[in-house]
């Protein structure tokens, strides 16, 4: 019985291969997008981690000599024996290349080249001959060393890594190291530093949390859009399954009438759908892998080679990929087919067998739909205003998207009705009326297009806002060309004097810790300099806030302090007993704690015990080598204590930009899926439309005219959908940036608008609609008269 019933059920698909293609294609594309987005997400996150690692090169705490000189290797041995988890590092310049010597067995993970982290040949690396890992650009400079050079594109430009012993030999600095990196995890019991090495001091590493938090926000939003992409595909699947159920209704009734138990019939359909889901899931996972691989050319390889152990296998065939891909395909099918199965379970045995395939007379349903849409959109507005947790933020998104999708057919129907009223010609009136009639059949495809376009607008807005914000953030934070960490106040004074002699601006980086309204805060004393005036962006401020700061009357604070302590511009806070007026609030994306900035002179009077040991050095690009060599050679500050941040910023920006290319491609793919949905809906409708078109043709409208009007219909519907998608996409971006982000991270990204991107998107969407309608329209214009005549011949 099962075999016969399954044969009957499957025969529907063989006779309607296009429907089968829609189902499999839709599901495969949905799975592919989901899987692809997950891979892209993993890669994006990795990119940011890498960028973070690049920016905060000195992320580990370090032990350095108080006098800034080299450390004797014996001290390192003594510290290890005393229970200190430290690793030596030495560096020197070979031509233009910074040669870094590391000790691979003790070095903290992220300070090593990737090849060694993931099981490179440590033996060869640490052998007497040794190996030098370097990028292609460094080979020429290193050639004179006559060492075994391993060329790798994974090494950033201008740097080379080798075993510490090899570098000591090459630099002729036996038995000494520059710094000792401290492993983040130190044993609970260890001898005191003052006992073992009183000549050393701890230099605090820079926390890597800044970019990490910003990354988290981006990742979260991208995940939301990944899910949205999946939803677009599920709309297609839902349409295909729904249509197949409606068309097979008489067959199911007959099967039941012939003695097939309802439970078994449902079971067979579940099996049928499960097999489809698995088949589509496999195709989808493979496609997803290809999408991710195609979208990330070289990025993974470049970044993974260097930073972070998790990056290496991002695009490897891992079981979790298969399981999550197939799981999402089966889950998606269950969601898409659940309603139809529920209907089948409730269908009376003697129910009327007439198929109500596209349910043209859907007046009551349309009213219910409009009511539901209105309710959901109202709920979204209320939630959007009140939402203060992540769950409520996502509930807002859900209500907004579902409400808008349900409202779309109602809105479009209203506009078409209006359009018909304005139309004067007979053919024009028919066009509007017929388009209205097609609407129920095309609704799901249009909803898919709506979600795809809204996701695109949202992604464009979010990504572009994010990018601009981040670039500002980099400019703000990494404005100085060089950053120098001195070890002692004497060294600091030497640096300031030396730079002043050269006419180079030096910006001290000094801070003290305070608490405002329960929020831990770092109070910075910045020098009054154009660097801050030119680069720092304020979310809210009085006019010329830096003037008030320079006049020792005002303080500028970061958004975290502003929000968490509930402060506002104009309000007064006490800094070390000194009342100060808040004159500005600046975006400080990613910083987990509060920050307040006053001017240097005031800072020194309020915190006389704090001495600046870190400095930003503003120097023109062409003078960099000269200034650097002056700092190292004349002022005696080790090279390891100097960071060329401008160069690292360029590298970080490049990494970011390459990740954004991915989202662009993702936008196009999502639109392509929506285009596929329209194509399949039009093809499915085409066969059902012949009886409606034949009389119009018989009355004297040519097939070519009908074809052209079909393209016009698709363009019209796509345009109307685009008009609804634009505000929806912007609302989506707003919810993500202002609700979800705030709930998740405590700060919000500014929302910027990019009209040219939206216009480009609109053109792309129309193009997708035209492309999707071309084939059905061409087929219609080429329909043999004999096929049209069958409509009349079948009358008898």
């Amino acid at each position, binding site marked *: 019985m099962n075999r016969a019933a399954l044969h009957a059920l499957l025969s529907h698909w063989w006779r309607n291969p296009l429907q089968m293609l829609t189902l499999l294609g839709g599901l495969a594309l949905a799975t592919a997008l989901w899987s692809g987005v997950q891979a892209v997400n993993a890669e994006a996150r990795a990119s940011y981690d890498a960028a973070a690692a690049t920016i905060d090169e000195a992320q580990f705490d370090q032990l350095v000599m108080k006098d800034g000189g080299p450390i004797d290797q014996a001290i390192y041995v003594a510290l290890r024996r005393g229970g200190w988890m430290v690793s030596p590092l030495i560096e020197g310049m070979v031509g233009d290349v910074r040669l870094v010597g590391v000790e691979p067995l003790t070095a903290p993970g992220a300070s090593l080249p990737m090849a060694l982290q993931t099981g490179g040949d440590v033996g060869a690396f640490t052998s007497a001959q040794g190996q030098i890992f370097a990028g292609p650009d460094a080979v020429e400079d290193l050639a004179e060393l006559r060492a075994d050079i391993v060329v790798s594109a994974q090494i950033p430009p201008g740097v080379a890594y080798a075993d510490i012993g090899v570098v000591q030999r090459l630099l002729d600095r036996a038995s000494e190291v520059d710094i000792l990196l401290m492993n983040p995890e130190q044993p609970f019991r260890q001898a005191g530093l003052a006992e073992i090495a009183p000549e050393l001091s701890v230099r605090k590493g820079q926390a890597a949390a800044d970019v990490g938090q910003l990354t988290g926000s981006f990742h979260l939003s991208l995940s939301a859009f990944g899910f949205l992409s999946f939803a677009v595909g599920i709309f297609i699947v839902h349409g295909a399954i729904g249509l197949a159920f409606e068309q097979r209704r008489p067959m199911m009734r007959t099967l039941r009438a012939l003695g097939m138990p309802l439970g078994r019939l449902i079971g067979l359909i579940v099996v049928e759908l499960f097999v489809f889901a698995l088949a589509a899931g496999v195709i989808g996972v493979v496609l997803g892998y290809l999408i991710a691989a195609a979208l990330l050319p070289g990025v993974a390889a470049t970044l993974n080679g260097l930073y972070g152990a998790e990056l290496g296998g991002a695009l490897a065939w891992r079981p979790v990929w298969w399981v999550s891909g197939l799981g999402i395909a089966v889950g998606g099918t269950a969601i898409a087919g659940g309603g139809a199965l529920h209907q089948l379970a409730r269908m009376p045995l003697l129910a009327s067998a007439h198929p109500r395939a596209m349910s043209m007379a859907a007046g009551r349903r349309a009213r219910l739909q409009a009511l539901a849409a209105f309710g959901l959109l109202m709920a979204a507005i209320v939630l959007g205003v009140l939402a203060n947790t992540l769950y409520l933020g996502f509930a807002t998104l859900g209500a907004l998207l579902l409400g808008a999708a349900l409202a779309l057919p109602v809105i479009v129907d209203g506009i078409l009705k209006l359009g018909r009223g304005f139309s004067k010609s007979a053919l024009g009136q028919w066009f509007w009326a017929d388009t209205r009639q097609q609407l129920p059949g095309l609704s799901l495809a249009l909803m898919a297009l709506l979600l795809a376009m809204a996701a695109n607008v949202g992604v464009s807005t979010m990504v572009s806002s994010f990018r601009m914000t981040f670039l500002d953030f980099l400019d703000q934070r990494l404005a100085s060309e060089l950053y120098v960490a001195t070890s002692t106040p004497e060294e600091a004074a030497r640096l300031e004097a030396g730079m002043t002699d050269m006419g180079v601006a030096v910006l001290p980086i000094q801070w003290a810790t305070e608490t405002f309204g329960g929020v831990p805060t770092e109070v910075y004393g910045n020098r009054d300099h154009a660097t801050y005036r030119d680069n720092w962006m304020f979310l809210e401020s009085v006019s010329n806030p830096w003037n008030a700061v320079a006049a020792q009357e005002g303080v500028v604070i970061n958004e975290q302090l502003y929000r968490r302590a509930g402060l506002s511009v104009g309000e007064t806070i006490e800094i070390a007993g000194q009342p100060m007026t808040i004159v500005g609030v600046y975006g400080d994306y990613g910083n987990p704690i509060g920050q307040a900035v006053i001017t240097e002179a005031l800072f020194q009077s309020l915190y006389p015990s704090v001495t600046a040991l870190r400095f930003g050095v503003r120097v023109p690009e062409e003078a960099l080598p000269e200034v650097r060599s002056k700092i190292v050679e004349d002022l005696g500050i080790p090279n390891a204590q100097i960071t060329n941040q401008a160069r690292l910023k360029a590298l970080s920006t490049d990494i970011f930009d390459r990740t954004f290319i991915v989202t662009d491609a993702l936008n196009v793919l999502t639109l392509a899926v929506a285009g596929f949905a329209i194509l399949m809906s039009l093809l499915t409708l085409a066969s059902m439309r012949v009886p409606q078109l034949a009389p119009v043709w018989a009355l*004297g409208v040519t097939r070519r005219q009908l074809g052209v009007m079909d393209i016009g219909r698709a363009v019209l519907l796509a345009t109307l959908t685009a008009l609804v998608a634009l505000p929806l996409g912007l609302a989506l971006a707003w919810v993500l940036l202002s609700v979800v982000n705030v709930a998740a991270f405590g700060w919000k990204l500014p929302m910027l608008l990019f009209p040219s991107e939206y216009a480009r998107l609109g053109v792309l969407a129309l193009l997708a609609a035209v492309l999707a309608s071309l084939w059905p329209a061409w087929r219609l214009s080429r329909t043999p008269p004999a096929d049209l005549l069958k409509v009349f011949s079948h009358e008898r």
Partner: protein
Amino acid sequence: MLLSVTDVHKTYETGEGAFEVLRGIDLTLDTGETLALTGESGSGKSTLLHLIGGLDQPDRGQIVVDGIDLAQRDDKGRAEVRRGTVGVVFQQFNLIPSLTVADNISFQARLAGHYDQTWATELVDRMGLTPHAQKYPEQLSGGQQQRVAIARTLAARPKLVLADEPTGNLDEATAADVMVLMLSLVTDTGAGLLMVTHSTKLAGQLTRQVHLRAGQIV
């Protein structure tokens, strides 16, 4: 002469090979004349009607409608003939479901570019459709729908009306009413009428009868 059909042949390819539906048909019709085309199922009546209406093309022979040789017209030209010269009434009405009764009736005349509001209103009135003018086809009975279909055809004032079993889907009383109305309106417009029917009773109401058997006039 309004219609001239000369030595028309038509063959269809079927799964079992070629099937010659029409085998040398000769037929004429004058303006104002009404002609009933009768015959068994499969005798070729509808095929001949479709050829005359420019909905299909013969393999051989000539069809001239109001001086227009259909063979000399391309797809666009034949569409023009269907809009302005010929009107077809189908058995299944084939109304446009998305348009109201009034819009359906005016549709073809407006397509042809000679819509006459007074005439359309008169047609609606004479067909008894005034209360239903703003309804949609699905809200009408079969008889009412066929009246709309006839009104739609006649609103365009075609020179030749082709009717394919126009009362085939109606009960006897309704069919008689519809027939009376159609004949009276066709007579008023002075058009020629060629009607395919199974019913000898209906055929008897027309001025001339032609019987088709196995693709030939007998």
